[in-house]
């Protein structure tokens, strides 16, 4: 007992990346209306993570059997309700002049691939854009509508619908060129120890993923699965809403969704998942 405890202490102090990382061994093939979709939940880490992580894992691999099963079949996935509602909104003639999303874009499948590369710096405007930013721009500048805000049902539904179009595609967020300064800013935030608990994203999701923090099995905090249907809240959660919760849990003052800080952080965290599949709408506990 004594020896093992000291060993454990020495290990914890001496080894930056604990060997004790325990995602489950499992593979994800989602049964959908269009047939089975294979999801990459585990792959070699992108080059920019060299020295930090060797393998990246979807948060799906850290959830229990029941939660994982809910994502295997769209019939069981509670997030699909949001997708269906999003489709209705997509087709609704809600614009000031009776426009719908469909009247400009055609079917939602025209946005296939978009989720996989966001956030990105928009070529025309030079602005850093999340999915919410694109949706908001269409609403307010093209359809003459009030903003839906970042936490509304309409916004959740639309995020779900558009993300679904890229399901199974590898996350491939650009980190160079115009994105580089945002990526650097996001990286700095990721490694900053915030709040009275002095904890960084990296402490929980890079240093100690695979460990238990009380009842929670720590994942790598990847966002390839977002938006996620969270069973605990019975609600759909965007990446930045999840960030709010994690920062609050460090006894810190959080940043707001759509703040420059969280947009940069979303870009950086997304890039840590380059190579994992977009899950469309995932299920977490």
């Amino acid at each position: 007992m004594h020896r093992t405890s000291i060993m454990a202490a020495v290990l914890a102090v001496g080894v930056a990346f604990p060997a004790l990382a325990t995602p489950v061994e499992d593979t994800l093939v989602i049964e959908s209306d269009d047939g089975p979709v294979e999801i990459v939940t585990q792959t070699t880490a992108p080059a920019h993570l060299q020295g930090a992580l060797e393998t990246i894992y979807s948060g799906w691999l850290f959830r229990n059997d029941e939660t994982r099963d809910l994502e295997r079949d769209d019939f069981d996935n509670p997030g699909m309700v949001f997708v269906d509602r999003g489709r209705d909104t997509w087709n609704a003639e809600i614009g000031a002049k009776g426009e719908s999303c469909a009247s400009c874009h055609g079917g939602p499948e025209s946005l296939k691939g978009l989720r996989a590369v966001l956030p990105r710096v928009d070529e025309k405007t030079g602005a850093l854009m999340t999915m919410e930013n694109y949706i908001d721009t269409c609403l307010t500048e093209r359809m003459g509508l009030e903003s839906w805000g970042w936490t509304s049902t309409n916004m959740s539904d639309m995020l779900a619908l558009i993300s679904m179009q890229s399901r199974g595609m590898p996350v491939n967020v650009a980190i160079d060129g115009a994105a580089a300064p945002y990526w650097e800013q996001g990286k700095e935030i990721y490694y900053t120890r915030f709040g009275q608990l002095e904890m960084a994203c990296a402490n929980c999701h890079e240093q100690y993923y695979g460990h238990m923090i009380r009842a929670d099995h720590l994942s790598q905090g990847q966002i390839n699965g977002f938006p996620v249907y969270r069973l605990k809240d019975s609600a759909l959660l965007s990446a930045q809403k999840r960030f709010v919760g994690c920062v609050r849990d460090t006894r810190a003052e959080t940043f707001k969704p759509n703040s420059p800080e969280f947009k940069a952080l979303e870009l950086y965290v997304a890039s840590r998942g380059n190579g994992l599949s977009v899950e469309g709408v995932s299920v977490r506990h």
Partner: protein
Amino acid sequence: MTRQLALAVAVALAAASPAMSETSPNDVQFDGGAVAQSLTGVPGDPTAGVKVMTTRALGNCVACHLVSALPDVPFPGDIGPALDGAASRYSEAQLRGIITNSKHTFEGSFMPAFYKTEGYIRPGDAYTGKGAAEPLPPILSAQQIEDVLAYVMTLTDE
């Protein structure tokens, strides 16, 4: 005055006017991570210590540490080493130092500093997500540190 009475008076005084005998967070003297002097002068209560260690909004030590002697704790974490036998590995002063601010013992530790009030990045008002001005109240009071210490001191290898 009998000794007992003197003690009772001292305890009453300490409770009534904590500032008189408590070491404030900024005045704690670390010696290579160890803190020799009691933060309050009042002996810790191990039962109260267990409460602090297992309560989420207080020490929540079990979020990260297994304590085999506390079998009723559901889901202890495994981020830090098990605390079993900690009092055989460390002196009382070393343990007081670790519980007060472990970063003096383990550089860059993930373990929070429980008796510290300033020097934070974006300090918040507990778990509300709202900002708060420093100095923050320490996560644990001086007496709660002594209570936790009193319990951890019972964790020896027999």
